């Protein structure tokens, strides 16, 4: 990894994250720290989607499926094992395996982008409905009752060497920040490896990547699986932050929310989605404390305005503004692209006509 401009920014960000983590107890109130765990969990989910969608070009509308599977697998395993160390591994593995299986069917089945979005969403909704139907006492995995609609209470994390000494909610904050920062570093490293650059190339032009000999299916699958594993790790933090997992984790609202963080924060960046998650979390959180306007109304309107006015997301827009010259060039590039797209489309049409 070389010290490019981007990497200097990334290093600064990581440093800021570390400083924030260490300074938080002195700066913030206890409840803020505890409540941050949930926001951090969501940010990890956003990061995973930012990776596979922003860099892998895979529009997964069901990233919460892996997040939720991580949370559920963690909870069930922790209840059964009586400690969290194995449960953490089980959770990440379960999420990764599920992503790998789903990804295998989609990528090796050559499913188109639109269908990929809808299939991942559908699978998530299926999980949602299935888990809501497990309230009977017969739905039990080991010692863990699935609890249906009401969900399961998640046992807290513990340190690997002290299985019967659970962490306090405020300590989960540290674990969460560590996962987020390490996850961010992994993602930032990954996109600069040969693997990551091929993934980006596939996002740019899948056919060309194939024509120079890359098996794009494999790369997408690997990316998808890694994303699933990171989301699963986020799920563990989420289960700890909320203290409970319920099927609602898989509902449409949350699935859509994940996409929205990435769009609001900026696709094609890693920090953007993370910021998007934090921003929207605090917006919705704040909305719940004002009793004037209907929350759905405000949130809905905000999103619509966002789509129309800031379609590129906060971070890219900010970077453009920060670096004026760059932004002018980017603008030219966009124009050219559009022009070329038009040209390409008409030549494709010609080609189509050619075949018939």
């Amino acid at each position, binding site marked *: 990894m070389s010290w490019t401009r981007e990497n200097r920014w990334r290093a600064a960000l990581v440093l800021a994250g570390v400083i924030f983590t260490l300074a938080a107890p002195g700066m913030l109130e206890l409840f803020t720290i505890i409540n941050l765990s949930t926001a951090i969990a969501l940010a990890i989910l956003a990061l995973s989607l930012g990776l596979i969608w922003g860099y892998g070009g895979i529009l997964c509308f069901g990233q919460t499926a892996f997040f939720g599977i991580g949370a559920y697998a963690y909870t069930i395993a922790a209840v059964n094992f009586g400690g969290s160390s194995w449960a953490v591994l089980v959770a990440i593995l379960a999420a990764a395996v599920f992503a790998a299986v789903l990804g295998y069917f989609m990528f090796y089945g050559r499913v188109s982008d639109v269908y990929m979005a809808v299939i991942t969403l559908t699978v998530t909704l299926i999980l949602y409905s299935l888990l809501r139907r497990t309230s009977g006492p017969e739905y039990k995995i080991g010692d863990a009752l699935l609890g249906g609609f009401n969900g399961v209470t998640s046992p807290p994390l513990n340190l690997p060497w002290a299985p019967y000494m659970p962490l306090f909610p405020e300590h989960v904050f540290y674990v969460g920040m560590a996962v987020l920062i390490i996850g961010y570093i992994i993602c930032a490293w990954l996109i600069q490896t040969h693997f990551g650059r091929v993934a980006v190339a596939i996002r*740019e*032009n899948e056919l*060309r990547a194939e024509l120079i000999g890359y*098996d794009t299916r494999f790369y997408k699958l690997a990316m998808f699986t890694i994303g699933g594993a990171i989301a699963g790790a986020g799920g563990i933090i989420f289960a700890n932050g909320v203290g409970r997992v319920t099927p609602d984790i898989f509902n449409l609202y949350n699935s859509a929310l994940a996409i929205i963080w990435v769009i609001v924060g900026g696709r094609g960046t890693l920090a953007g989605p993370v910021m998007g998650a934090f921003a929207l979390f605090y917006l919705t959180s704040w909305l719940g404390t004002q009793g004037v306007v209907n929350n759905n109304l405000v949130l809905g309107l905000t999103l619509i305005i966002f789509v129309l006015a800031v379609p590129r997301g906060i971070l890219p827009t900010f970077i453009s503004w920060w670096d004026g010259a760059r932004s002018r060039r980017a603008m030219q590039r966009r124009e050219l692209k559009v022009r070329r797209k038009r040209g*390409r489309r008409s*030549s494709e049409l010609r*080609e189509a006509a050619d075949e*018939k």
Partner: protein
Amino acid sequence: MKSEIVVETRNLSMHFGGVKAVDRVNFNLRENELRCLIGPNGAGKSTFFKCLTGQLSPTSGDVVIRDFNGTGRLPHQIARLGVGIKTQVPNVFDGLSVSENIWLAARRWHGAARARSLTSQTVERLKLGDIRTDPVGQLAHGQRQWVELGMVVAAEPWLVLLDEPAAGMTHDEIERTVEIIREINQQATMIVVEHDMQFIRMISSKVTVFHEGRILIEDSMDVVTADPRVREVYLGNSAS
């Protein structure tokens, strides 16, 4: 001097619904040959090309590349035989820079160091040095075509398949492209799909003429242009 046959199709057919875009084509290509495929619009040459490169899976018949049965394989599997492919619409990575584009092709085959040197060599060779850090999406059409050629070359293929490499180019650009193609041909066997007669004359190679999904005639450019059937096909079908 008869060299080895490296590309062969046997009764290759590709049907779209009821339309026989390629109809039982038997085609042979020998090592180090430079072959142009021509024909009017709808003759089936592009479909044929896509069957060769794995972009389409033929309805029936076989594609054999060296000893490898390439029928119904995926593009990356064909590419991994050492085949360089350039499609009709410029397929490049718009968001990446010129050298990144070429690096990705070189890196598929070589370690990091070799890939780097191969990249700079290729950039040199195609005279793309001035624009090497520019995003490909910003470049002019002709330059994008060359970047794509660069990606083909950087992989050091022994067989190169080009679909309309000169489409949309200015006269000067075409001349430059012809030069590049001649240069590539020194190390690789080539198939070039083209309908610009001028361009083919400049390359001066053996020509296969497609018509209605079949091979109409296969000979040198002079013979082909003199052939009355070819004239009829071209005058009759592309009256513009």
